[in-house]
């Protein structure tokens, strides 16, 4: 007996990369010549090895509870039967293809078909395995070396106030940086599809991060040193080699001078009741831009690249810092059901830059975001160095010129078409159970 299994959103090489968001799959009988078969076939979908690798869970429909196995009945005429599959929270993959879907005839041991996939998740940088860490640093350094993706040579862009204003100091800050990170991650995945952006949990000690094998060991006067196998040694930005970074805290035992995760999620409005509430002018977003985001940057001393807004992206740590900022937003969304951009407590300025009320251009829900919108000339900057937004087979969102609002339902919780194929290890799909 032969069966075929396919999962939606596979890449050009036929590989699937899953997150916690359910993705549709189909199973069908293949050997159905001349209608010989008359009886349907019962099959079971399971994880090939429940002890090792990423784990998956299955359901017959998108909105139904998922479990470790799923029984399906395949019609004898070969019609496909739908199922939905997602990664199991807490059990992501470590390597590409270590999560294997196994389909066997009901009650049988031997698999009829197996499909390796990856439960590809953004993880805590301090907890990466050496292999995960090295894949990330190698791929990031290669992207940097190619002058590709976000590392296109626009050194003067850091000095242009209009460019900085597209992303900071107004409510679109979180959406813009979510897009920025996803742009980078997709470029990394073009080189190595098993790589994700890790996050720097800056409110906890992260001794494994500040080592010569990872983000670099800081020495005297801002020197950052790397081991022989760490390709980040070859890092270059703005026509100069290396990184200047001088932590203002003990990187082995201490942490950045930031408010912790819980307090971050309490920001906005009148505390203690307001919980990252957007209020009348998106107070919570504003406040978190100051601390923990701003304080994570300024926990490094004077000349450190990451300390100043004009030079921060020159330090690769910048991307891990912002990944945690985005994760905090994602946690808030999950905890309080904030996926509907049309609701004021998800996003206050729900019109465009000419609506009433409105805020600065690029920071209203319906505004497209520079640079991906390719709009130049005042009030946008003169250049748009990164257009269009990278499109991938594994996701239908966001489009080539995303709006602020397009970045909100990143898991496709409200609309499956909005899923962007990234997720955080401690932010499940859906809404927190109450």
């Amino acid at each position: 007996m032969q069966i075929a299994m396919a999962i939606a959103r596979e890449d050009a090489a036929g590989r699937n990369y899953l997150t916690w968001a359910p993705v549709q799959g189909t199973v069908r009988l293949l050997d159905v010549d001349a209608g010989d078969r008359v009886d349907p076939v019962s099959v079971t979908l399971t994880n090939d090895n429940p002890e090792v690798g990423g784990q998956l869970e299955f359901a017959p429909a998108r909105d139904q509870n998922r479990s470790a196995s799923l029984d399906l009945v395949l019609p004898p005429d070969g019609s496909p039967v739908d199922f939905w599959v997602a990664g199991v929270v807490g059990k992501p993959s470590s390597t590409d293809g270590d999560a294997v879907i196994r389909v066997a005839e009901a009650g049988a041991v031997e698999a009829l078909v197996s499909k390796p996939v990856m439960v590809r998740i953004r993880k805590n940088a301090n907890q990466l395995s050496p292999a995960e860490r090295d894949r990330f640093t190698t791929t990031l350094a290669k992207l940097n070396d190619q002058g590709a993706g976000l590392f296109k040579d626009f050194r003067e862009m850091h000095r242009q106030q209009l460019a900085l204003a597209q992303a900071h100091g107004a409510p679109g800050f979180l959406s813009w940086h979510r897009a920025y990170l996803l742009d980078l991650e997709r470029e990394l995945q073009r080189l190595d599809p098993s790589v994700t952006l890790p996050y720097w949990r800056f409110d906890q000690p992260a001794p494994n991060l500040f080592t010569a094998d990872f983000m670099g060991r800081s020495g005297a006067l801002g020197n950052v040193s790397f081991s022989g196998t760490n390709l980040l040694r070859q890092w270059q930005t703005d026509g100069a080699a290396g990184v200047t970074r001088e932590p203002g805290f003990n990187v082995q035992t201490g942490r950045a001078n930031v408010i912790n995760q819980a307090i971050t999620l309490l920001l906005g409005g009148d505390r203690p009741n307001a919980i990252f509430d957007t209020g009348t002018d998106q107070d919570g977003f504003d406040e978190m831009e100051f601390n923990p985001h701003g304080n994570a940057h300024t926990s490094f001393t004077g000349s450190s690249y990451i300390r100043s807004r004009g030079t921060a992206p020159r330090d690769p740590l910048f991307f891990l810092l912002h990944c945690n900022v985005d994760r905090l937003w994602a946690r808030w969304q999950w905890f309080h059901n904030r996926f509907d951009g049309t609701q004021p407590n998800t996003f206050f300025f729900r019109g465009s830059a000419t609506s009433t009320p409105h805020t600065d251009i690029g920071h209203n829900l319906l505004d497209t975001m520079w640079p991906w919108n390719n709009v130049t000339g005042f009030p946008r900057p003169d250049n748009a160095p990164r257009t269009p937004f990278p499109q991938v087979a594994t996701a239908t969102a966001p489009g080539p010129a995303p709006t602020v609002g397009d970045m909100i339902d990143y898991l496709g919780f409200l609309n499956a078409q909005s899923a962007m194929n990234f997720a955080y290890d401690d932010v499940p799909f859906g809404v927190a159970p109450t």
Partner: protein
Amino acid sequence: MSEQAAQRLEEELRRELREAQAAHSQYLSELEATAEASRAARSSMEEGLPGDLDDDPAMTVLTDTSLPDEPRIQVLHQLGPSLSRRDEFIEALLAIVKDRSDSPAVREAALQALGSAAFQVLRFRPHQPAYDDALHDLVADPVPALREAAVGILAQQHDPVVQETLIQGLRGEGSLPVERERAILLLAEDDHLDNLPWLRELYRSGSESVREQSVRFMGSYPDARSTLEGILRDKNESTSVRQQSGASLRHLAPDRFEAVAKEISTDTTDDPEVRTACLTALQHLGDTARVYADTEFVHRMQDVSGDESAPQVAQVARELLERRPDL
């Protein structure tokens, strides 16, 4: 499955939030008490705050220089985010930073807060000139940490005023606000200055870390190419400095780096860490097709990959061979 995991995560977060809320409520009570005492003390001395701030316990405590450091710094930590949206908060921070009679620890905390506020670019625009002024004031401040922070921030912005101060100091025409080595490295952040002579001075006299920095910055000066090659080849130099020299040479002259890296990586008498760094760069970066097209080099990699006297080099050599494109 995920449902149970989500449940656990939710419970954990809810517990954290309860604890944070409780701690914050307690803090607000303590703050109110401290503010009350501060107001009373100021009233008795016939001082006062501007009217609208007088009712704000956070601003009352933050601006009271007679209080110990801890409650004032705690205001920044606990309530900084909500205060950051107010112009008077930024103005108060600027006043604290500029007040040399105030506590250094509070001034440092205020400087960090200003740096964080600067990331709120749109909101910070009206304060930018005053912030720059405060930084320029700090260049001559008696507190070393504040001086160093301000000089570092301004130098990274390529501020011409602070650059001139550093240049004059290095020439002996004025005093240096920071130590000489730091001054040279701060100027080196601007590749449009004549930094190479000072970087050479730093290389001759500095510690390993400082030498590593100096060769890093030399990578912006084509005239330093032969120096960088010499340092990369120098077996008496430290591993880390040689590796950085290689990175800088690759930045300036990738073809030259490729040639030297091939020699070093096949030199069994050379430092394994440096050989590893060279091989790692050769197989991943730049014109890898040309590297693999060098059949003699690839052939020598076969020998290196079997040399267990340098296991890490052998491992990287094996990876290089495994990555060889199909012919």
